[in-house]
């Protein structure tokens, strides 16, 4: 590793300590905004305005902020909506894109395969803003499909398949030996059975990368859901926090509690799966 050679200089310990100190200071600055929100989520409005940096409120922790935020944001319902939309989208996305990718790799000479795959590749540079107006014109104004959770799932799939098919395509091409499938086929298994029993289990590494990337994408998505869901009962977390922020923008304590609640689930999962998340992001970015 390059580390050892560069660290092998003369003032090893001193420069190491200095580097760690710098790294710690910078990391502290990076994480400070989150700390700030967390400590202020338990304070009264007055204390937040006067002494935002103080750890605790003179009147003790204001748990009432959380109670207010949960009620006013309709947090449980919004959380459930987010969970449903993200869960269904990601599971379907993984099945459909891995199936498509397999076909595009194994039958790469078919014109239909080549056209579909190239179109998906090319579409990856299209920014959402280009399709957002026509999407609403078609699915909102003409087909009246707004305010259905499945519409959101449908669009998540449409926007997600290109990237995921592309990533699975690379993985299947490089890592899945054809001989395995041929053996299964000779034993009389059909195409689908071969795919689901032989190929799909081998795709686990790439599918876990994809699911991490897409769960983050879908969970944090704001603009598309804001156009699909106009009724409060369907609001996902980002929509709920936006409305909440608009209504209570001067109630800092409640706002901070609401922000903490929306950040917490992701951070907790990150603490548990940190290695996988980082590995997945790197693998996804370099592709």
């Amino acid at each position, binding site marked *: 590793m390059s580390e050892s050679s560069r660290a092998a200089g003369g003032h090893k310990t001193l420069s190491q300590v200095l580097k760690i100190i710098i790294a710690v200071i910078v990391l502290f600055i990076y*994480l400070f905004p989150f700390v700030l929100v967390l400590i202020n989520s338990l304070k009264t409005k007055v204390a937040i305005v006067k002494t935002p940096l103080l750890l605790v409120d003179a009147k003790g922790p204001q748990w009432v902020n959380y109670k207010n935020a949960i009620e006013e944001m309709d947090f449980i319902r919004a959380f459930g909506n987010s969970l449903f939309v993200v869960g269904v989208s990601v599971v379907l996305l993984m099945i459909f894109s891995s199936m*498509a990718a397999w076909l595009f790799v194994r039958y790469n*000479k078919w014109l239909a395969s080549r056209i579909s795959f190239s179109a998906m590749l090319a579409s990856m540079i299209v920014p959402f803003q280009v399709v957002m107006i026509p999407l609403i014109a078609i699915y909102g104004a003409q087909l009246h499909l707004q305010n259905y959770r499945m519409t959101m799932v449908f669009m998540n799939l449409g926007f997600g398949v290109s990237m995921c098919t592309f990533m699975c395509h690379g993985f299947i091409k490089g890592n899945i030996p054809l001989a395995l499938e041929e053996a299964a086929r000779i034993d009389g298994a059909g195409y689908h059975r071969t795919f689901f029993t032989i190929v799909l289990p081998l795709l686990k590494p790439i599918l876990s990368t994809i699911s991490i990337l897409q769960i983050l994408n879908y969970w944090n998505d704001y603009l598309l859901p804001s156009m699909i869901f106009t009724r409060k009962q369907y609001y996902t977390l980002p929509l709920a926090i936006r409305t909440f922020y608009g209504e209570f923008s001067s109630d800092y304590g409640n706002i901070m509690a609401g922000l903490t609640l929306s950040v917490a689930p992701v951070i907790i999962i990150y603490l548990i799966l940190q290695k996988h998340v980082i590995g997945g992001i790197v693998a996804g970015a370099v592709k």
Partner: protein
Amino acid sequence: MNQNMSFRKKLGLFLSFAGPAVFFFVCVVIIPLIYGIYLTFTDWNGLSDVKNLVGLDNYAATFRDSAFWNSLLLTTGFALLSVLFINVIAFFLAYLLTSGVKGQNFFRAGFFTPNLIGGLILGYIWQIIFSRVFPSLYSIFPITLLQKSWLSAPGTAFASMVIVQTWQLSGYMLLIFISGFVGISEDVLEAAKIDGANERQTTWHIRLPLMVPSFVVCLFLSLTRSFKIYDMNLSLTAGGPYNSTKMTAMHVYTQAFENQRYGVGQAEALIFFIVIAVISLTQTYLGKKREVEA
């Protein structure tokens, strides 16, 4: 695998495997893309069933829409500044963390944290910092910069956006730079050392050229993401004060959904797309040309 089969069998196989993915993709991306081009030639207002063809009127209106061109200029400035800060900071942090600092994984994970959260929430968090926490620090550190909310004046509001964008994405690019540093072969560095190269020379003449692929990826990701900025823009400054920080994505949104000028909004979105595509493809092309073999 045997690719000679009857047409019906081929069709069945294609539809049962690629059918769903292609269907969603066509419905959500391809059809709207084509329909969007048609919309730029109509005067649709978002409500009526009638769409009159108006020729090139929307493009003419786009041409005259100085707010749009200003937003494009502003977004370009925002993207360039952000890309510069993001990559310089990420590169130096990656250099620091790979030079034998213990707990590299811990730091890596910590710096990445802002990327787990959506731009909307990050914008809200920083809005409180710039508009509340900074002014309250004025009593302790009486410098003019902290006297009033950063979001109340155009210059500082723009700076706030660059800061938040840099803060978020540098932790992301850091991961890519780290994997670039770790990927440099030990033999090459050893050879340079034997040839008498010092630390600075090794970094400048060996590491940097070998890091070009990482730079290409990082520049591409940070550039496209900064150009498309919307969520953070909405929650941090909402385009204000006086539309001074309204980026192109937000301009397109207001043009269509608030001014009900869908045709003009769509024409502007198309031009926005072309600008992003040209810039990012040129950048990738130029970067790829500079890649070297180790």
